[in-house]
């Protein structure tokens, strides 16, 4: 990253020393030739200087830390293993641990600014669940305790016992016992409500084994409704083109199916007309509340109000609602209508219009029955995760193939969009100009200044025309959301609108792109990568997310139901969306901080190490004489200092995982890359230079024109080398101690171990035996014994340590006191909070009081009604259908008074 600068720095140092050598050889070395002739072939001072340049390149090359690469890889590998090993990212239900599939991206996990998420299977489980309902003005589904307080539903809440119904789906869970009571008490509206649910749909049943019903539903919503009816005792059992078989409270009834008034996007409702075995003709209708409320009979007004209240409540919880209603039909009217219907459906022209007219004719004056609320089951902890990530200043873009309604609905239910937002812009223009206008209007509202010529970004754009533009972050005047449809996105992604889209979208806190193709997903990611200097992360589970996952800097695969493609092309994988916050806020943040601390320390120690040679050059005739023993130079990076810094960068934690989750703001410095950038690099360079000055001049001063306490000379080269290298090693060890904020046993072992290994190796290498065996290699014999026994040597070492370390302590402390960075404040807050007992882990359910009407629970496609009525999709004879072999009149069932 900074290698070019370092190389330039190295070249500069070598140049200075080479010139110095030239001058020195000219002024002094030339005359010193009596005692030290020039080397063979050297004829002039300038040539000597030239040679010296290369000698110094060899000596000073340790500023370019080559061993850094190895260490970086080890650290990344270690931090990847931590991800694999994390039990808090292990999903026991399908036995899936988190997996780091690439080991080179860990620190980028701590710098994510944009998350691109798939919806289905990632945010949601793709399971619809009948959650609540309102029947005849009474709301069911909530659980209250004795005192009337609403209870949170969790695993321990008692489920409703459906054992009275042998055909019940065991997976279905409902908690409100009062609804079952109502069913058992033969409450008429309740029965009618469930009868409607069991009749008014286009679901196909499948019963391979008796009693084992499987529903094939066009949309999961419908399936959920029919399953609910089934469990409450209205079992949809079989259908033929003309009939529907329902087991009503154990009693098999065959309804004649007279017509299906199918769903489409305009009608937003569907109806069926059936004749009961008793001969009553009834129209059952379900649909979006906005539509159905217009069609109600005036007598339902008071019920309508109550139901509306319930609907609002449901919507506030992010549930998908439907209103259900019915109407009894007169025989005559119906015969007339069916005749006209037949005519219309065989008409050659304008058939659709005629049919819809007819539908409207019959679907009026409906009697309101109630409302259903279906939960598009989010994965566990999704809203909390999204809230946390948003607090960490991460922008979340949801890219989904779903319809806008569904997407927005999910947006609300997982807390992406909420009512605190100033506005949610919806971009759905169908021409390039429309889209441009919509985008511009949105931006105008968010940041009116951004259209002025004086706006910095506009000026910047003009300057850097056509070239690679990086759009800086812009601050909107509030919290906004943006919803854009795939159609509009296609226009917006075209060349000239790209910039507009990026500027507008990136100002919003949340962006939802609906009905996008896999390719568009990748294009959106590409767009942000191109115009923003930010690290992006894409998360998805299906094959359609692969392109997006591959495009983003970091791809995360949810190893879920939808196969393995996403996981295989991802960098990290785990089973649940909620693990993302742990991956980013804990692992990512730690990895980033560790890597930054590592780099800072590594550069520091190499600068401090190498620059001493530079200063020594001025005192040794620029002769490329090293300060330290050759062995020390060899072992410094390899043995003496490698383990402590590795220990720090594998174990360090400034705050533990709990706090980094509680204070997501701690993530922000990573996004802005505050812990290692040019300024930080220059700082640690300056610190290294300062240390090297101390490390050279304190031993120099302490040895100059003095002697040992026994009168012998002290200032010999070997003693000086030993003193300087001992100073250096202790100083960098103390420095790593200062940098380490999490001293595990391993750190202690590494740091103390390295120091003792240094002394052990030094004394060994400087011993008599080594000298007598390897005379040429270990000329420092006796230096350690003779020098380290001197009090003033140790005093000089202590002084160097003090002078190197104390300023750092003071500077760091004063910086947090005088100019605390936001993260420092958070850390301070944590420190204060630690004194108090830890707060209870927040486990509240997100409740919003929303007046927004949520999306209606339909698949948003044209229904299958015609197909069913034609019977073409039915097998000629299904083994259990219509025969009613099931006799539900068990004793237990009767016993309960039904």
């Amino acid at each position, binding site marked *: 990253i900074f290698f070019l600068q370092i190389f330039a720095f190295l070249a500069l140092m070598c140049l200075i020393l080479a010139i110095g050598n030239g001058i020195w050889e000219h002024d002094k070395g030339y005359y010193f030739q009596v*005692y030290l002739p020039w080397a063979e072939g050297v004829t002039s001072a300038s040539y000597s200087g030239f040679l010296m340049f290369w000698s110094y390149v060899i000596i000073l090359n340790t500023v370019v830390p080559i061993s850094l690469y190895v260490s970086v890889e080890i650290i990344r590998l270690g931090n990847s293993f931590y991800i694999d090993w994390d039990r808090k990212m292990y999903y026991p239900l399908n036995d899936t641990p988190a997996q780091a599939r690439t080991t080179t991206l860990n620190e980028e996990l701590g710098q994510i600014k944009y998350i691109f998420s798939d919806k289905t299977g990632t945010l949601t489980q793709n399971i619809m669940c009948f959650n609540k309902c309102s029947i005849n003005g009474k709301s069911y589904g909530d659980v209250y305790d004795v005192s009337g307080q609403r209870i949170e539903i969790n695993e321990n809440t008692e489920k409703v016992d459906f054992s009275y119904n042998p055909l019940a789906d065991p997976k279905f869970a409902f908690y409100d016992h009062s609804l079952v009571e109502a069913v058992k008490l033969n409450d008429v509206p309740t029965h009618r409500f469930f009868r409607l649910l069991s009749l008014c749909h286009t679901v196909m049943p499948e019963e391979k084994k008796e009693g084992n019903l499987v529903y094939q539903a066009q949309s999961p919503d419908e399936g959920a409704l029919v399953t609910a009816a089934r469990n409450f005792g209205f079992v949809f059992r079989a259908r033929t083109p003309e009939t529907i078989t329902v087991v009503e409270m154990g009693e098999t009834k065959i309804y004649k199916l007279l017509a299906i008034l199918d769903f489409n996007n305009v009608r937003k409702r569907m109806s069926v007309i059936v004749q009961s075995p008793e001969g009553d003709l009834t129209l059952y209708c379900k649909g979006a509340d906005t539509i159905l409320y217009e069609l109600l009979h005036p007598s339902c007004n008071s019920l309508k109000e109550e139901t509306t209240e319930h609907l609002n409540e449901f919507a506030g919880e992010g549930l998908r609602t439907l209103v259900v209603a019915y109407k009894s039909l007169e025989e005559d009217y119906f015969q007339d209508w069916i005749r006209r219907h037949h005519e219309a459906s065989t008409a050659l022209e304008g058939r659709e219009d005629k049919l819809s007219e007819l539908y409207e004719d019959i679907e009026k004056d409906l009697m309101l029955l109630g409302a259903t609320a279906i939960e598009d089951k989010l994965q566990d902890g999704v809203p909390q995760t999204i809230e946390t990530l948003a607090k960490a200043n991460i922008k979340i873009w949801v890219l989904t193939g779903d319809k806008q309604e569904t997407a927005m609905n999910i947006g609300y239910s997982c807390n992406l969009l909420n009512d605190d937002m100033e506005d949610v812009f919806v971009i759905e223009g169908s021409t390039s100009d429309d889209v441009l206008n919509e985008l511009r209007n949105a931006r105008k509202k968010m940041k009116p200044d951004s259209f002025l010529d004086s706006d910095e970004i506009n000026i910047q754009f003009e300057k850097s025309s056509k070239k690679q533009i990086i759009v800086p972050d812009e601050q909107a005047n509030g919290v906004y959301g943006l919803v854009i449809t795939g159609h509009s996105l296609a226009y917006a992604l075209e060349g000239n609108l790209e910039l507009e889209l990026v500027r507008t979208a990136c100002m919003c806190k949340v962006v939802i792109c609906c009905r996008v193709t896999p390719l568009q997903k990748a294009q959106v990611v590409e767009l942000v990568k191109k115009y923003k200097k930010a690290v992006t992360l894409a998360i998805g589970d299906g094959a359609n997310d692969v392109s997006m996952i591959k495009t983003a800097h970091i791809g995360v695969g949810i190893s879920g139901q939808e196969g393995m493609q996403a996981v295989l092309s991802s960098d990290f994988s785990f089973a649940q969306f909620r693990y993302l916050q742990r991956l980013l806020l804990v692992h990512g943040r730690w990895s980033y901080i560790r890597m930054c601390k590592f780099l800072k320390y590594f550069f520091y120690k190499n600068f401090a190490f190498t620059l001493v040679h530079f200063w020594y050059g001025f005192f040794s005739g620029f002769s490329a004489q090293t300060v330290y023993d050759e062995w020390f130079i060899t072992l410094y990076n390899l043995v003496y200092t490698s383990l402590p810094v590795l220990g720090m960068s594998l174990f360090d934690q400034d705050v533990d995982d709990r706090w980094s989750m509680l204070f997501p703001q701690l993530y922000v410095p990573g996004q802005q890359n505050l812990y290692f950038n040019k300024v930080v690099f220059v700082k640690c360079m300056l610190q290294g230079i300062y240390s090297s000055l101390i490390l050279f001049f304190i031993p120099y001063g302490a040895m100059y024109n003095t*002697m040992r306490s026994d009168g012998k000379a002290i200032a010999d080269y070997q003693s000086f080398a030993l003193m300087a290298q001992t100073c250096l090693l202790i100083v960098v060890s103390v420095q790593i101690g200062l940098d380490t904020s999490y001293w595990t046993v391993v750190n202690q072992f590494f740091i103390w171990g390295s120091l003792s290994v240094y002394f052990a190796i030094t004394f060994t290498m400087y011993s008599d035996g080594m000298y007598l065996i390897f005379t040429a290699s270990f000329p420092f*014999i*006796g230096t350690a014994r003779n020098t380290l026994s001197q009090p*003033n040597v140790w*005093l000089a070492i202590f002084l160097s340590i003090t002078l190197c370390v104390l300023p750092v302590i003071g500077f760091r402390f004063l910086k947090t006191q005088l100019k605390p960075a936001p993260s420092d404040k958070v850390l301070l807050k944590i420190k204060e909070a630690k004194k108090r007992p830890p707060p209870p882990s927040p486990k509240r359910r997100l409740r919003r009081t929303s007046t927004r009407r949520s999306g209606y629970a339909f698949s948003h496609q044209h229904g299958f009604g015609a197909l069913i009525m034609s019977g073409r999709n039915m097998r000629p004879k299904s083994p259990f259908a219509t025969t009613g072999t099931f006799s539900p009149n068990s004793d237990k069932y009767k016993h309960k008074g039904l």
Partner: protein
Amino acid sequence: MKNKTNFLPKEGEAHPSRCPDNSAFKQQRLPAWKPQLTIASVLSSFFLTGAFCLAVGVCLVLSANSVREIQVDYSDKCSDCSKLRENSSNWNKECHCSVNFTLKEDILGDVFMYYGLQNFYQNHRRYVMSRSDAQLLGRNINIQRSYCAPFSTYRNGTPMAPCGAIANSMFNDTIDLFYNRNSSVIEVPLLKTGNSWWTDKNVKFRNPESYNLSSAFAGTARPPYWQKPVYLLDEKDERNNGYVNDDFIIWMRVSAFATFRNLYRRVRRIRHFADGLPAGNYTFRISYNFPVTRFKGRKHVILSTVVWSGGSNPFLGIAYLVSGTAATLTGFVITGIHLKLRKKKTYFQKQ
């Protein structure tokens, strides 16, 4: 890691769980000491180091001041000789000069005599390398392959003993000290041996083995600048001759800087000099052999006593005093800043 054995049997089915182990290491929950920069630790570190440095500084300065040192620069005073030595053809002519000085007070205790050189780049890389440790160990090796060049062999192939630029440039002035007492001149007894490191004398330097020294060095020649061969360095003392000569050993321990002093002699504490050097007039009688004028070098002779912290160099003491003062002052500044900030904070909290 450790838990693995405990953990598996619980889940020990045919298909082992992929759940990671619950060890403190893998879950990054190793117990740890989390030091933090608190006001207490910062202030105590500053004040304690400050106090310590001041104390040590005072001790060092006091002890450095108690050192008596006399330094005489004789490169100018012996200008006749230095001129003579500028011409290398006069190498075998002897030249003597005398330098007088007066001691007003007695120098008590052990007195050491050093020679000091200035501007002599003993730390030049090629100079430092230019020696053969194996040869100095008395081994019979081919010094052609050492770094001794160009001071390894003569043109006729005779190897130099010892070889290399360091040995060749050995300081070869002889300095004697005389005490002028009531017009009688007494030579101050000086010790030649015991001035080098024990390891150097006994391990690092050894004479080649033979029945006597001159035969041990047979087949070698003295380095070009020497006046006598290595086995005649100290004819009177067998154990101070050849490679194990103290003057030679000390010279071979090259200095880290271009200005340095090496221990030359110690005053032997007998008779008049039992307590050190008494006050009076003294004369250094110098046999001037070592030319330094060519490269603007200077030569000194130094008489000094020593204390526990070494010689009279006040650097360390002053540096300690300065650092101690700075640390203490910074401690006060930090205290001030902290108090001010805290006042502000409580003020805001009250609001």
